[in-house]
């Protein structure tokens, strides 16, 4: 393809402006050989729209801050190469779905992290600093199950991709439930019963339809659907044993 024409070296980028009510604004941005979607948004803010609000921190796929909806799909923008997603030199960038929009590309993550709390996503230690460190067999079944989900970066891409969250905003969602599953498989944790009760309620793991949108979109390649299936199994076993309060 010829690279001489000026128009061929530009991308047309539509960016959401405003809150829940708003509109897409169109910008023309220079196309570069190597640029991420986050680079594009940064270019728009620095050269065309200083008031554009967006969120990022590490730029290397560790912090989970920069997720947005890119051409209809939730993605981590710092690790999404423009060449992968720009169809015909066009990009449409919106805030992440299934979360309240604060302004432009920034969503309110409060409901997302509140769900982590509701799912008891915090570690409940059974030892103190006075005790010997716990010996955890890295090859054990439980540890391997925990390791499979432990690399979540809290980007909320899975939550944006989840049909059940869209239908029922109270649903705890893939990230919080995945976190709960890693803790249930953590030999050092002491809140298994309380956590199983927390994830077995009306908004909990039994709502999952196993559509696997979370697993399909997770930038870290995790499989929250499998974690939720594990929670369902553990929840029903606890129910039959009379351990589910």
């Amino acid at each position: 393809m010829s690279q001489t024409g000026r128009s061929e070296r530009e991308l047309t980028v539509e960016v959401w402006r405003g809150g829940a009510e708003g509109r897409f604004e169109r910008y023309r941005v220079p196309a570069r050989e190597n640029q991420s979607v986050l680079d594009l948004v940064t270019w728009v803010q620095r050269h065309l729209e200083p008031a554009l609000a967006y969120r990022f921190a590490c730029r290397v796929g560790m912090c989970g801050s920069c997720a947005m909806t890119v051409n209809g799909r939730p993605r981590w923008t710092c690790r999404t190469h423009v060449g992968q997603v720009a169809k015909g030199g066009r990009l449409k960038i919106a805030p992440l779905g299934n979360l309240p929009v604060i302004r432009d590309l920034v969503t309110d993550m409060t409901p997302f992290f509140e769900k982590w709390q509701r799912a008891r996503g915090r570690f409940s230690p059974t030892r103190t600093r006075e005790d010997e460190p716990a010996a955890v067999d890295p090859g054990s079944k439980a540890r391997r199950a925990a390791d499979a989900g432990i690399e979540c970066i809290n980007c909320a891409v899975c939550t944006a991709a989840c049909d059940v969250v869209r239908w029922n905003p109270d649903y705890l969602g893939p990230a919080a439930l995945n976190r709960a599953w890693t803790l249930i498989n953590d030999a050092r944790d002491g809140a298994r019963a309380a956590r199983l009760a927390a994830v077995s309620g009306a908004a909990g793991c039994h709502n999952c339809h196993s559509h696997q949108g979370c697993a399909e979109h997770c930038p870290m390649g995790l499989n929250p659907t499998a974690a939720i299936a594990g929670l369902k199994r553990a929840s029903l076993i606890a129910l039959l044993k009379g351990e589910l309060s």
Partner: protein
Amino acid sequence: MTAWLSLLQRLSALVLAPLVLVHLGLMVYAIGDGLTAAEILGRTRGSLFWALFYGLFVIAAAVHGPIGLRTVLAEMTAWRGRSLDRALLAFGLVLLALGARAVLAVVLPGAAP
């Protein structure tokens, strides 16, 4: 309650799956073979096997249907909570009553055709 409903939904599905297959095969056989209503009733009346087969079918369907419908309504409409639960409990009881009536009509000896 959610965990119980989930368990009942799965157990009733396990029961229904083979029963539905046999039922469908039976329908194809009965219609394809041109059995009359009297011939069918002649085989079902007084039969403990068909009473248990369709009795179990009705119970499993009356459990499975309302639980699934409850989820669909809660996800697709704004209707949730106790009023939804009560409405679907009533729906399940109606299914159970209508189904039981149909089963009794074909298995009780001497019932009106």
